[in-house]
């Protein structure tokens, strides 16, 4: 646990939002994103992880007209504005679904420590590395 102190008398913890489900079909992905957007206001160290069918959430070119649901995928592009800049995507989950990082949206953030240079938010990690990412967290919310 980080012992860094925050203004509100609270502590900074490492929160990981683990996304395991496809974006439509169930409401998990949408409601997970709603938690993430609220979490951004709490000045915690937030990361997102995408494994299993969760990798579909980041696919580009989503068209939901046929299922009469709101396409919420543009929201992922706004995460950088909320200082959420770490989106870990599991390589094996992509490969098992015939996907590669080229099928995913180009999600970027502006790095304030590097003259606001645009940098990619998506970090491709192996299954082993994903386990290490999880190991480093204080709180994991699995959706």
């Amino acid at each position, binding site marked *: 646990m980080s012992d860094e102190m925050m203004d509100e008398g*609270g*502590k900074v*913890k490492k*929160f990981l939002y683990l996304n395991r489900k496809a974006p439509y079909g169930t*409401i*998990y992905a949408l*409601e997970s994103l*709603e*938690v993430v957007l*609220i*979490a951004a*206001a*709490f000045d*915690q160290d937030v990361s997102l992880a995408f494994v299993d069918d969760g990798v579909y959430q980041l696919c580009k070119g989503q068209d939901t007209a046929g299922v009469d649901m709101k396409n919420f995928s543009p929201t992922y592009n706004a995460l950088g504005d909320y200082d959420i800049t770490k989106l870990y995507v599991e390589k094996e989950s992509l490969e098992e679904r015939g996907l590669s990082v080229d099928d995913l949206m180009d999600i970027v953030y502006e790095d304030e420590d590097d003259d606001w240079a645009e940098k990619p938010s998506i970090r491709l990690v192996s299954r082993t590395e994903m386990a290490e990412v999880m190991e480093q967290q*204080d*709180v*994991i*919310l*699995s*959706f």
Partner: protein
Amino acid sequence: MKFGILVNEGPYQHQASDSAYLFTKAALEKGHEIFRVFFYHDGVNNASRLAVPPQDDRNVTQRWSELAKEHNLDLVVCVAAALRRGLLDENEAKRNGKNADNIAEGFRISGLGQLIEAGIQSDRLMVFGD
């Protein structure tokens, strides 16, 4: 230890709520503290006092209400998840022009910030879901 509990599935359909209840009860019996139980996704349906399960079955909602009363538990239902699923307290019913409310005793409706706070303040946040 101080636990936060997140319940992401509805009653009867899924075991998550039963497991969360049994865990919470066992933790309290062992002298641990429960900072908050937060109900999200279909988990908000655990708070409906209009559910009428068969008499020879457990009553999931009533069980939570009784545990809350006994241990002064904070049972929080996410407002956004509750409203879209038809779970309303008196305030929300009035605000949204509905003629009924259905939140059981011991539960309260509040925002997602309460979940994040539970994550920050608890030693462990336990997620019960699918």
